[in-house]
């Protein structure tokens, strides 16, 4: 909240967030966040545990709706349309804004059925051949096709952790979203799987608006173009990643990225 003109002054943003507050019961977790997120590229949310970054991420696809006593106020515009408005169906919103969770959560079904689930429920394909194509394209885009093309009928849960996370990304891509939210997607992965995932993010950022929550500052520095630093429910700093990591304006940011707090 230091430099209000910078976080919201983006030209042609994907998301415009204005004064968003999230509370669970009487406990306010986010205290008035405003920022803009660009149409493509990776935006990283960093900050110490409990700072509200994951809660904020769930604002973008209204996953907070599923928590019984959560309340969201403020304005979140997706391409200029308020996603908390009365004419927005959260079900359709989540088709446009996909999400990948911290722990890989493939369905206990075959690899094929995992990827085909989204297109099936939304009726995106008209023939089996078309669905096959979508599954292949999604798995290719998630850099998993070569590893699983001969065993599409095997259980998604039989894959390794890194493969499962890429399967979940393929599953999200298959719905043809515009935005992909990722909540600490690499925290359950080993360094090699993490490297693969980051490589994948680098490719995906050309086409999608990606928002990633991460604990690892090195990861944020490697994969993101913009970084937002959260602290105790406040947005402290939001700027180009380069600038946040080399020349932070707020001492709290500086303390966190240099490892003095956090």
């Amino acid at each position, binding site marked *: 909240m230091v430099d209000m003109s910078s976080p919201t002054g983006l030209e042609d943003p994907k998301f415009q967030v204005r004064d968003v507050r999230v509370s669970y019961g009487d406990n306010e977790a986010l205290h008035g966040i405003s920022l803009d997120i660009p149409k493509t590229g990776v935006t990283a949310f960093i900050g110490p545990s409990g700072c509200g970054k994951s809660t904020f991420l769930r604002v973008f696809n209204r996953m907070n709706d599923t928590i019984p006593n959560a309340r969201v106020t403020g304005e979140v515009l997706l391409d200029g349309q308020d996603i908390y408005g009365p004419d927005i169906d959260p079900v359709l919103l*989540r088709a446009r804004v*996909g999400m990948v*969770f911290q*722990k890989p959560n493939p369905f206990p079904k075959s690899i094929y059925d995992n990827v085909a689930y989204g297109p099936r*429920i939304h009726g995106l394909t008209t023939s089996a051949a078309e669905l096959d194509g979508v599954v292949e394209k999604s798995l290719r885009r998630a850099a998993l096709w070569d590893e699983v093309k001969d065993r599409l009928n095997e259980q998604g849960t039989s894959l390794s952790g890194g493969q499962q996370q890429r399967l979940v990304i393929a599953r*999200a891509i298959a719905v043809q979203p515009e935005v992909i939210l990722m909540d600490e997607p690499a925290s359950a992965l080993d360094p090699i799987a993490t490297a693969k995932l980051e490589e994948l993010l680098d490719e995906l950022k050309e086409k999608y608006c990606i928002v990633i929550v991460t604990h690892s500052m090195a990861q944020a520095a490697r994969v993101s173009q913009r970084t937002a630093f959260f602290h105790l429910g406040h947005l402290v700093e939001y700027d180009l990643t380069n600038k946040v990591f080399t020349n932070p304006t707020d001492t709290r940011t500086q303390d966190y990225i240099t490892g003095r707090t956090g």
Partner: protein
Amino acid sequence: MSDPANSETISVHQSEQAASRLKRRKRRESGFQLLGISAIVAALTALVWLMVSIVGTGYTAFYQHHMSIEVVLDESLLDPTGARDPDALRKANYRRIVQNTLYDRFPEITERRAKQALFKTVSASGATDMVRQMVYNDPSLVGQTISLIVPTSDDVDQFLKGYIDRDVPEDRRKLSDQQIGWVDTLVETGEIRARFNWAFFTATDSRDPELAGIAGAVAGSFMALLVAFLVAVPIGIGAAVYLEEFAPENLLTDIVEININNLAAVPSIIFGLLGLAVFLNFFGMPRSAPLVGGLVLALMTLPTIIIATRAALRAVSPSIVNGALSLGASKTQAVFHHKVPLAAPGILTGTIIGMAQALGETAPLLMIGMVAFVTEIPTSVTEPASALPVQIFLWADSAERAWAERTSAAIIALLVVLVSMNALAIFLRSKLEKRW
């Protein structure tokens, strides 16, 4: 980390006190293990005792002594007119035919009382009914001599199984010395032999223990259980899924929830009273019918199925549901595509356990009249029928010695069905869990 009182080199975990603390801790742990083992031994002893007592009493009911007889189908007795009229053939005096057969076997017996005693060694209604049925089916048999194997009377059977002691004074036992003499002769010649008691599985209830079987009760139980299954499973699972996933959180839902949990603890006889009041008196459904029995059992099983289903749904990882929701699945789709299939093994187990419970239930069936003496196998759910546990209850109440072994045998049959149902539950559970 060292204790300041000790030397600098000895750590707090190497001192003598530490050793005694560890000893005490180990003693407590092994004490608990001992307690657990003795609990299991006690439970196993009770179980083995039960099984030994039931099987020990019941196994003799699975064989039965039969007598081979040569029956002369005397035309002058059965069909004096020679018309072979089926009606007349049915009404003919088969009792006399069987009596004559026995008198011919022991021609030296002439005294009337002795003759009566001789006739009592064979199952009177069993033998006469068998001959009548054969002649009725094939009237051309009249005038011929046929070989038959008929059950002995229950007293002879019990004597040969060792339950009637020949050393007891004659006036205090069911068989006279004379009868024992005849039986000994017939056993020696091989005319009386023990055979597998098929009738126990194919016959219905009877006043004569040697003719009684569990087929009618099994059919009644099966039908009642089928009705209970068809009613309780869809209603129970539907209610559980709605309550767990979709019901708004308000006072009404809380009240419904508390009442379902309370219903699970209501004594089953109350459900019988409810069935009597609602199904019989208000809706006028037939008495003693498996349909009503099944409905009552369904009411009784509902809470079990609902509670098991809700527990199974709650055990499904929320990450799977979140995954579906994040792809744009609606709540209903997430529940029915992912949560219910994943909960299926648990739901199935709960259902089968509920059904097994219902199978063993006696009290509610007594209230709605499924305690009748039924000698025909029911062919529809509205016909009067008995049920296996009720049959056990009825036989346990009967006086003759032969009923005791049949009661135990029926219990064995019931236990076999229950164990198979539970085995099926375990099998299906492991199979379904592999698939998912």
